[in-house]
């Protein structure tokens, strides 16, 4: 109905509008040229066969057909990606929430502890994986020394298809310091009055945790879950830095398969088909998360949109 009453826009408003477009111009370029247009380009390129040079041929849905029916790596790759992401997400979500809860108590040297748990996050990923590969080393690694001391014998942390993904997920948990800091921020926003009221009513610590802390934290938990899921489904660094997709093809994550198709095998169209599947996979996971979020996210005063 606003449209019918056309008010002349004031000079101030016009100035404001113009300034706004100038200020968001870089973002507009970013959103169009490096986000949404490439997203459309992926759809288009997936119908072509191209080495990145030479002739481009239209192949219809051949890339998809090949991916789903003939690619020996594809299904293992989806499995590895989802398996890794689930382990890494669940592990780091639980670990970081527990640490944040502990850090939220009135204890000395909190700043020091917080810094220590965040520290791994500021180390370059390549160096982290290199360092951990030494810890995981079969012959001389620290973990194998400990496991033999514990009577478990030597363990092939990175050299067995069965253990490599859990071993890498453990590194992801170690790197989850950013989640801890975000949780801590959330915990500090839980109104103290609720705890006081609950205590007067005789609620014990356990009840207070489940009835106050967790409900208030659900938006933060959702945020962390979402971000950590999107990040971990995109896992590629450990494969690039350390495993090169192996042993066998146990760590040929979807991102790595995409990378290899495009930049090692020079199959640009095929890589785009993989990117499509990857896009859908992430959309499905985040979609599920959003769909269920209404049931478990608690908003203050139930102010849902």
């Amino acid at each position, binding site marked *: 109905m606003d449209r019918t009453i056309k008010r002349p826009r004031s000079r101030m408003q016009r100035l404001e509008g113009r300034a706004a477009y100038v200020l968001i111009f870089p973002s507009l370029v970013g959103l169009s040229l490096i986000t*949404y247009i490439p997203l459309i380009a*992926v759809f288009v390129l997936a119908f072509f066969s191209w080495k990145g040079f030479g002739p481009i041929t239209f192949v219809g849905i051949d890339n998809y057909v090949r991916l789903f029916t003939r690619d020996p790596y594809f299904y293992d790759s989806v499995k590895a990606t989802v398996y890794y992401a689930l382990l890494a997400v669940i592990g780091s979500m639980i670990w970081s929430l527990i640490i944040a809860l502990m850090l939220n*108590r009135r204890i000395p040297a909190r700043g020091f*502890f917080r810094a220590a748990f965040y520290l791994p996050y*500021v180390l*370059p990923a390549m160096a982290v994986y290199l360092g951990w590969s030494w810890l995981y080393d079969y012959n001389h690694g620290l973990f194998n020394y400990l496991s033999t001391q514990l009577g478990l014998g030597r363990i092939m942390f990175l050299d067995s298809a069965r253990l490599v993904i859990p071993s890498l997920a453990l590194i992801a948990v*170690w790197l989850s310091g950013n989640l801890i800091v975000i949780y801590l921020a959330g915990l500090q926003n839980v109104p103290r009055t609720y705890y006081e009221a609950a205590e007067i009513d005789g609620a014990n610590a356990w009840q207070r945790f489940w009835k106050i802390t967790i409900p208030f934290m659900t938006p933060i938990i959702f945020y962390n879950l979402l971000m950590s899921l999107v990040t971990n489904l995109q896992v590629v660094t450990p494969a690039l*830095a350390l495993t090169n997709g192996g042993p066998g093809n146990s760590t040929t994550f979807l991102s790595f398969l995409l990378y290899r198709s495009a930049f090692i095998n020079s199959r640009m169209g095929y890589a785009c088909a993989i990117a499509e599947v*990857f896009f859908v996979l992430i959309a499905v996971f985040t979609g599920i998360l959003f769909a269920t979020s209404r049931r478990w996210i608690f908003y203050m005063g139930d102010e849902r949109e």
Partner: protein
Amino acid sequence: MNNPSAVTGALKSRRRREAVFNGLTFALLVILTLLVIFPIYWIFRSSLMTNAELYAYPPALVPPEWRWGNFPATLEQFPFWTYLRNTFTIILPSVLGATITATMSGYAFARLRFRGKKFLFALCVGSMLLPTMVTLVPLYLAWNKILGLGGTYWPLILPHFCGGGAFNIFLIRQFVKMVPRELDEAATIDGCGPYRILFSILLPNIKSAMIVVALLKFIELWNDLLQQVVYINKQEDFTIVLGLSLFKGALKSDWSKIMAATCMAFVPGIIFYLLGQNYFVEGIVMTGIKD
């Protein structure tokens, strides 16, 4: 509970219980912190030992001799300073670009009225969930085939001058929203336009947010491997992480030197973090992710 002494008694025992609980938490935290720091210590300790010492059984917790000479010896094969310079050639302009453009957009989204604002903001939010992996190939092709900038640092730097990422725009927007609107209004009455307001009223108030954006961007780029692997192909252009990968490939299992190189790669990040620590925490606490 009507008896006052019973109430104080209950309070006292509750306090005592809490003190015990806090003590236990503290002890557990000490143990967990040691566990988290231990891998870093182990890597460091390994960088100060010879391979023979590393292969000894049982492994020594502390190096039998602190061989600092390992570092200069490693530097002979691992041109750390060149790599560091290359890395910063990419990171510094990127961080600057991201911080400036994110501040511009964040301010516009927080304060200014313009047509299509909601739609653009939705696009921005949507881009947060779009995996960078998905658009990797078309972007690579565009940089190489259309712009002909393959083999340069531009593809690694220029994208950061385009808004600095949705999360950072959010963060700035959130901070701007916390600055009282009365300040802007007073300035408007005094005849200030949107740019003047941004520069003289808001910038001093959101300085810490900008530092947070810069630090987060620094860490993001510092952690990146994929983009560098894709866009850098000449050895003289290698960054620390690519150099590390090359070094590992060349030395195979000379763990003593590899760990020394790894330690060197750790240092700049740690220094930056220690310098900016307070900003980080403050920034993340104040982002108000709840919005």
